[in-house]
């Protein structure tokens, strides 16, 4: 079963808001924690090993941003 990159979010802006709101008020470390937990929760929703591997590789294959030094 291949990864789905066609639009599949019922209400993209609403989801985007839910995601950003969840990060509001968090430190960088807490945000990283939230993202990691969310990745695992969503991975369990997807379930299929092949799809998950494709998603991971797709994320890794995008051009990397410049390293930020703060």
């Amino acid at each position, binding site marked *: 079963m291949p990864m789905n990159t066609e639009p599949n979010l019922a209400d993209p802006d609403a989801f985007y808001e839910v995601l950003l709101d969840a990060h509001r008020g968090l430190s960088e470390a807490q945000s*990283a*924690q939230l993202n*990691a*937990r969310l*990745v*695992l*929760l969503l991975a*369990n929703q997807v379930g299929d090993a092949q799809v998950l591997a494709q998603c991971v590789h797709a994320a890794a294959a995008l051009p990397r941003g410049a390293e930020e030094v703060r």
Partner: protein
Amino acid sequence: MPDDPKIVAPTRLLGAVGGGHYELPVYPFVEPAELKGELGRHPVVIIGAGLTGLTLACDLSLRGIPAVVLDEDDTVGVRGAASRGICYAQKSLELFARLGIYERMAAKGVQWSVGRTFAGDAEVYSFDLKTLATHDASRQPPFINLQQFYVEWFLVDRIYELGVVDLRWRNRVEGLVPHADHVEVQVETPVGRYALETAFVVDCSGGHSPLPQALGVGVQSARVPDRWCISDVRFAAPPPVERWTWVEAPFNEGRAVWQHLMADGVWRLDYQMAPDADLDRVSSPQVVDERLRRQFGAEVQYELVWVGPYAYRSQCLERFRAGRVLFAGDAAHVMSPFGARGGNSGIQDAENLAWKLALVLQGRAPEALLDSYDAERRPAARHNIRTTERTTRFLSPASAAERLFRDAVLALARAYPFARALVNTGRLSTPMVYEASPLACSAAPCRPVQNVALRLPDGCTGDLVSLLQQVDGSLVAIVAGPVDAVLAARLAAALPERYPVRCFYLGPDGPAAHGLPALGDADSRLAHQLGLDVAAATPALALLRPDLHCAGVLQSPDWPAIERAVRRVLGLGKD
């Protein structure tokens, strides 16, 4: 037979270190025949009398092969009475039952099936191995815990009892010289050097064997900076008999801890240390005392039996056979200890190799059969290494990102069942399925078969192990369903005359079919294990290997198909 090893200890438990210790046996040095001028060609030389070497020697003893074991030491165990490998898996226990030491292990060791994993103070999940389908049909339990030197001790006793294999203590191998039809083994002893000649050598001399390099066999190694302190402790008030593991133990500075019971009421406690820990300091009596009081309470009464540091790595040879030299156990593959795969895979290497070596040495199979040892056990080693490396990565995160995800798993596991499967404190050893085995005689891989109870042809209750003990090293063919009389007669007489195979009938209870001895399988456990259906409209034949793997099931086979299958399992190929 010598007595069991004793704990030499004060009768009153002390509150501090300095309690009991074990006294291990010392075996005699005997001047080798070669030094007295008696030369000859041996069938097999086994280098190293550890778990793997002794298991192989014991199995070969039962097959009538007079192997020679060379060990540079004169006792069991390494590093004194360190407990070392303590969890013996079901498949290993089934083999030990066939070898004749299981009863002693069951009497001395501790059976367990419940495990619990903790993060902080919270239990994250638990399991009971007895409920698993992969373990619930065998006559042996999922695990017995026992100090490694006990298992080695029992194997030595059994080898002496059988009187077939020559155990040579204080014989150190200095080098090997391979020739076309034999190997010359150069040996150093307290009374001089000698060389012996052998058809085959099995290197069971452990993870630091110099022989692979000497023979040009490549190796891949990987090490992580993970360090542990092992303490063997007896308590006045012991914990429950379960395997407990902590990923982040509050009493160990947020690092991992393992807790297991072994024989004689001695608990095995493994504490993960900081990677840069001073190993002498963390193993010192005072630090050990502080740690035990943090874990069990300030008033704990205990006796420290053994303590020492521990590190590990993974390592695998690029091939397990180099001509007349084979590598088994740690000499072939090394892995981290999580999941009890190291010792158990060495034992199962020996089980895989023994029947093949015996048939080759008896002229009943070609030397090419030994290639299947590498074809089956090297993938098993790679699988074990991959599995244990995943555990290592979870227990010893290598970067901030890896630690971040581990934290996420632990947080989620407290709340949600799905995340508990990600908490990795060791995936316990299970028997290997040989996926791409050259010996498979059907489309299916060679699957392990549990040691199920059954009724033997003489009417006695037994199990697959006792059936194997009766067939003198042969393969076992089990036929079910309406087999025709002519074929049955050939299976009963002609087939065993030509090949080392013995045939049995697994039908519904009743008279033996056409001269084939019958097995009783009242609750169909054997049929289920082999994938046979005694009520089927057409006959089937399962070919069981001496290492309790099914080589395949043939549906409605004719005589040529059966012969082809048997020849395949013996390494005789397709001709």
